[in-house]
């Protein structure tokens, strides 16, 4: 019964809309049709948040369907299932694997309103005019192509961008200061025999090898021409050092997921390990001291961005540009920055953060009040400062970026040998 009434009512409504559409020109039609647009986005759980999809619906009117996957599945889908998405939220180093498949299209930077405000690392590779460019797959090296349909990356701001940078951070080692009881200043401490059986590294080869390289270089064992693009010899030597350490019982375990790293640290199985910033927060929120230790050699950094499917065109493409412009306009940036990540356009995010939050997360100042996450968890008390200090101090000290090497397949095989050793 109610069904009938509903359908009659919706018919009346459609009729009214049709009449209005004929009476009033374009804008009304546009407004009506935007509501029917559905953009499908996928990416890792880091930035594919339901809160963002809800806010998009509220602000822009169209529907954003989010699918959160793990890093490996993200690569897999972007490379092999081009019809399954409109927007790919992928990491810059994955770009090297995905771009040659032609599944993504370049973006016209003149349509991106805040393009000029995007931080330098994504445009020129330099945070400040004076800073040096880090090793590895630095985002700007895979950030531009020569034009629409271009397959080669170019090293200048060509006006055609592969990904719009959205989220990035600087990673380092996490430690348990209460169980170590002395300052830790170098990556080499990961293999210090003092922590035998209490160290861990992540078992995701393309990231793990970079952490290994930071350690080997810090130990003075190997000097790399480019940590992000090692030669076979460098890979062999790096893995050999870690295999020896593994045989000597240096490692307690290897972790593959965020939760595993949290549990290893929180249970005291491990006192020093590769870690990600939100995992540190998760350990801390259990009342267990944990520090994201700034180290002399600097950080291993990563960045993610939004890419457009090559299938997008017409109104959907316009909606996607609207979405990207909205993304850089500050609300998402504020949301991400209040979790400890950085936004591509920090200055627009400022409007969506309190002065206390901006000071703590971006400027490295002591908190003047309690700092909470966007979901309400307490992350820091008044008086505390952020590990590693301000944005300039942290992002200015990046030593290398997550990378895909020319010898990637060889490296993966060697990595498997390391795990099986």
């Amino acid at each position, binding site marked *: 019964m109610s069904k009938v009434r509903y359908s009659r009512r919706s018919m009346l409504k459609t009729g009214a809309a049709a009449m209005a559409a004929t009476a009033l020109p374009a804008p009304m039609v546009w407004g009506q049709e935007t509501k029917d647009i559905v953009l499908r986005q996928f990416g890792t759980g880091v930035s594919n948040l339901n809160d963002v999809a809800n806010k998009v619906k509220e602000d822009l009117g169209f529907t954003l369907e989010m699918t959160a996957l793990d890093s490996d599945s993200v690569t897999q889908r972007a490379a092999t299932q081009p019809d399954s998405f409109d927007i790919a939220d992928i990491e810059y180093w994955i770009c090297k694997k995905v771009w040659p498949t032609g599944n993504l299209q370049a973006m016209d930077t003149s349509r991106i309103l805040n393009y000029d405000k995007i931080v330098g690392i994504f445009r020129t590779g330099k945070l400040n005019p004076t800073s040096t460019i880090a090793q590895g797959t630095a985002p700007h090296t895979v950030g531009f192509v020569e034009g629409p349909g271009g397959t080669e990356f170019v090293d200048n701001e060509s006006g055609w961008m592969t990904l719009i940078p959205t989220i990035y951070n600087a990673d380092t080692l996490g430690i348990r200061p209460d169980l170590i009881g002395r300052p830790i200043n170098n990556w080499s401490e990961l293999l210090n025999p003092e922590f035998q059986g209490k160290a861990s590294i992540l078992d995701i080869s393309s990231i793990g090898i970079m952490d290994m390289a930071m350690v080997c270089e810090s130990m003075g064992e190997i000097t790399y021409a480019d940590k992000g693009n090692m030669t076979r010899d460098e890979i062999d030597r790096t893995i050999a050092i870690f295999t020896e350490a593994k045989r000597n019982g240096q490692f*307690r*375990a290897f972790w593959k997921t965020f939760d595993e790293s949290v549990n290893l640290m929180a249970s005291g199985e491990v006192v020093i390990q590769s870690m990600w910033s939100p995992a540190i927060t998760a350990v801390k929120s259990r009342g267990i001291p944990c520090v994201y230790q700034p180290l002399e050699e600097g950080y291993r950094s990563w960045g993610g961005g939004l890419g457009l499917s090559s299938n997008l065109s017409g109104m959907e493409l316009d909606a996607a540009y609207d979405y990207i412009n909205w993304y850089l306009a500050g609300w998402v940036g504020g949301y991400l920055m209040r979790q400890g990540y950085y936004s591509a356009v920090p200055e627009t995010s400022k409007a969506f953060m309190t002065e206390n939050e901006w000071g703590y997360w971006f400027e490295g100042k002591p908190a003047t009040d309690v700092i909470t996450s966007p979901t309400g968890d307490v992350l820091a008390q008044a008086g505390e400062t952020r590990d590693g200090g301000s944005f300039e101090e942290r992002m200015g000290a990046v030593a290398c970026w997550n990378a*895909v090497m020319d010898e990637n397949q060889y490296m993966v095989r060697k990595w498997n040998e390391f795990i099986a050793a």
Partner: protein
Amino acid sequence: MTDQTLTAAEPAPAAAPRRRAPGRHLAGWLLALPLATVLGLFLVLPIIMIVIVSFWGATEFSIYPAFEFDNYAFLIGSDVTYRVFGNTIKYALITWAFTLLIGFTVAYFLAFHVRSLTWQIALFLLCTIPFWTSNIIRMISWIPFLGREGLANSALLSWGVIDRPLDWLLFSDFSVILAFVHLYTLFMVVPIFNTMMRIDRSLIEAAVDAGATGWQVVWHVIVPLTKPGIMIGTIFVVTLVMGDFITVRFMSGSQAANVGRLISNDIALLQYPSASATAVILLVTVLMVIGILLRFVDIRKEL
């Protein structure tokens, strides 16, 4: 069609017996059809696909149809493969020995010591209670128990048995095998219990009357008669352990690898052809093991 023409040509009374034989034949085929279709679609076809893909080639981001032996050549040429297969077989053998010992003892207790059928069923059901939760939960719950600050270590410390926590309890071969034994012993208990219940009790009486001791009864009467159950249990445990990679990953803290982990690593890195080749070799290995086991027992007689 021939059938129908025949029926039409022959006079009615003679047609009846003639039609019967092919009709029965058809019914048999029809009855077998659903299962055959399901097995064909979901078992045989995927395996054929895996074998085909194992000869394909792969790059960083794509796989392409080809017929090359690269995947197998790499597998056979790498000493990691041998080490990992060695590890897999080691886990299977040790787990088999423990599950057999425990499974046989439990089944023996249930079948011969517990007298009333009600209690037998009640205790048997008790054994299955842990299986009401998922495999992964049962496995992961060992981690806080065995950890450096876990229950086992703190209990041993407070009893004064040890003066510093034992590290080898967790993230070691010990914890992997412990979890395997915990997860798979029931697969040994059930078939052994099943065969034991079918043993004619008068055989045991006869053996006792003939002067056999308790051990002699077990060794010369019960064990030989339980052999089919042991073999079925063995097939379960060995195939499960050889295919399981999650247990190895979690309980060894990713420090050890078996063949399953090799395959899952390959899949994660988009190397489907190489994963398929490893899977084919694992499948052949497992089939060989089962083939050998089946030589010891006539499984048809059991079913």
